[in-house]
């Protein structure tokens, strides 16, 4: 498979751009692999990529019940940021952001990462104080972050609702290195990168059973036959509990909830930043895609669900938020909306950890925040699988943290999964 370059585009021009290679193969599953990753979403693909790239393990399969990148990889609002404060999250998400900054070069694939600033609106002195604490913590730990006063904010984003808002805007907390990326390109880039290193991406291959022997997983039963595995990693956020129970491991500190996202008809350039609005029960985040669509989202649907479709009351809530903060969107039409199933964990933080089975590893519990975590999630999960021990950065992303009292609760919402938005 050839590398992408300006020269390659030029050369393929002579044959009408019709002779490009496939981006990845469509292999038949082998009898056995050194590592089998379940789930060809962003995290599974990134994990396989880094297993091959950083750890030299090449005999890897990724099993996917549908098509790669067809789950939550395609059901998010593509926001990338690292404004996390809690120990446990802080260095993990900053590492992720640093990987994002080089990702297009790393993958030889344009993931359209755009550091367009993440602007969190502030509406009260108390919120400003809390933001100052968070963003100062970031600055003390090698991350950028700043507070904008109202004049600066008005200059940067003049068309927010500064006049008649129920909750007047008094400023913003801003991370300039944050932004967004093209979600499909991230999946495709990692898939191509993994495939080029020999990883078998096996689509339409649903795991239907987990074969165990002496506290180890020996094979996975799938819709395409039995596949042996020396090590297995689960990366199926949204449906983790199902697979976990298939392996006979019981309950998890996870509930599945659904989260909706929306895109409007394409508009001319309107919003240069990612803007977040959250006050008085409202929760709203919006950016504009390169095609012009306004991409935005809000809260969960508030009840447990595995259905990949959203309810209308949340559509109304989100529309109210949109017009409250950007009244100019009042007559913009909605193009589509979709819903993804989230692993909502008991403290809002993720799991990248060992499990009760010796050669089974878990990557789960990403709540709302899986997209931004992709590169670091793959990076550290690969490291865990290859070396059979967690890196210190992810030492508290394990299932035992609740027993130890190490709750990584960024929102301070308590053990109620639906509140960790």
């Amino acid at each position: 498979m050839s590398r992408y370059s300006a020269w390659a585009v030029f050369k393929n021009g002579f044959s009408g751009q019709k002779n490009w290679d496939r981006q990845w193969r469509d292999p038949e599953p082998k009898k056995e692999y050194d590592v089998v990753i379940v789930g060809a979403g962003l995290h599974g693909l990134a994990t396989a990529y880094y297993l091959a790239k950083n750890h030299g393990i090449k005999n890897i399969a990724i099993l996917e019940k549908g098509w790669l990148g067809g789950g939550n990889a395609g059901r998010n609002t593509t926001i990338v940021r690292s404004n996390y404060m809690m120990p446990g999250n802080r260095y993990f998400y900053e590492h992720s952001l640093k990987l994002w900054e080089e990702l297009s070069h790393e993958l030889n694939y344009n993931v359209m990462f755009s550091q367009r600033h993440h602007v969190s609106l502030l509406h009260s002195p108390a919120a400003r104080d809390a933001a100052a604490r968070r963003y100062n913590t970031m600055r003390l730990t090698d991350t950028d972050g700043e507070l904008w006063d109202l004049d600066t904010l008005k200059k940067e984003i003049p068309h927010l609702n500064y006049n008649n808002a129920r909750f007047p805007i008094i400023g913003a907390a801003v991370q300039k290195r944050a932004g967004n990326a093209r979600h499909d390109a991230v999946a495709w880039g990692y898939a191509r990168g993994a495939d080029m290193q020999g990883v078998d991406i096996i689509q339409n291959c649903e795991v239907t059973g987990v074969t165990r022997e002496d506290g180890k997983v020996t094979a996975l039963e799938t819709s395409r036959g039995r596949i042996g595995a020396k090590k297995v990693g689960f990366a199926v956020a949204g449906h983790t509990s199902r697979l976990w129970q298939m392996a006979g491991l019981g309950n998890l500190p996870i509930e599945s909830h659904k989260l909706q996202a929306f895109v409007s008809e394409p508009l001319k350039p309107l919003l240069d930043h990612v803007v977040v609005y959250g006050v008085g029960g409202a929760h709203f985040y919006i950016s504009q895609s390169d095609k012009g669509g306004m991409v935005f989202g809000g809260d969960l649907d508030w009840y447990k669900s595995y259905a990949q479709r959203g309810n209308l009351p949340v559509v109304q809530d989100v529309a109210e938020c949109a017009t409250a903060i950007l009244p100019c969107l009042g007559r913009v039409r909605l193009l589509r909306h979709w819903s993804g199933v989230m692993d909502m964990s008991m403290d809002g933080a993720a799991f990248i950890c060992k499990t009760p089975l010796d050669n089974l590893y878990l990557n789960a519990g990403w709540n709302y925040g899986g997209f931004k975590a992709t590169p670091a999630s793959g990076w550290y999960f690969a490291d865990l699988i290859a070396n059979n021990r967690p890196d210190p950065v992810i030492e508290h992303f394990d299932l035992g943290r609740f027993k130890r009292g190490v709750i990584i609760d960024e929102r301070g919402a308590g053990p109620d999964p639906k509140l960790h938005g």
Partner: protein
Amino acid sequence: MIRINCPFCGERDHTEFSYGGDASIVYPELDASMEEWHDAIFMRENIQGMQSETWHHANGCRMWLVVERSTMTHEIQSVRPAHEGNAAVLSKSGSGGEQ
């Protein structure tokens, strides 16, 4: 929109209700072991299919209900009061019941 047939108020939109969660969770005795409390507070079966769950009719009669609902289709199979004792008292005193 899910419609929940409240035994006290009749059928209402789910937006009148506040979601509680898994109704199968039973808290252990106060002096129970850490393990038991850990499991009750943090561990969930996370059923895909029909599950028993609690809803609070927050913008209605303010009663807690136990609802059997599918997490795949959102179809509701049954609704009953979470505290049968309260329901019995209410129906005797005539302050609840049919409206």
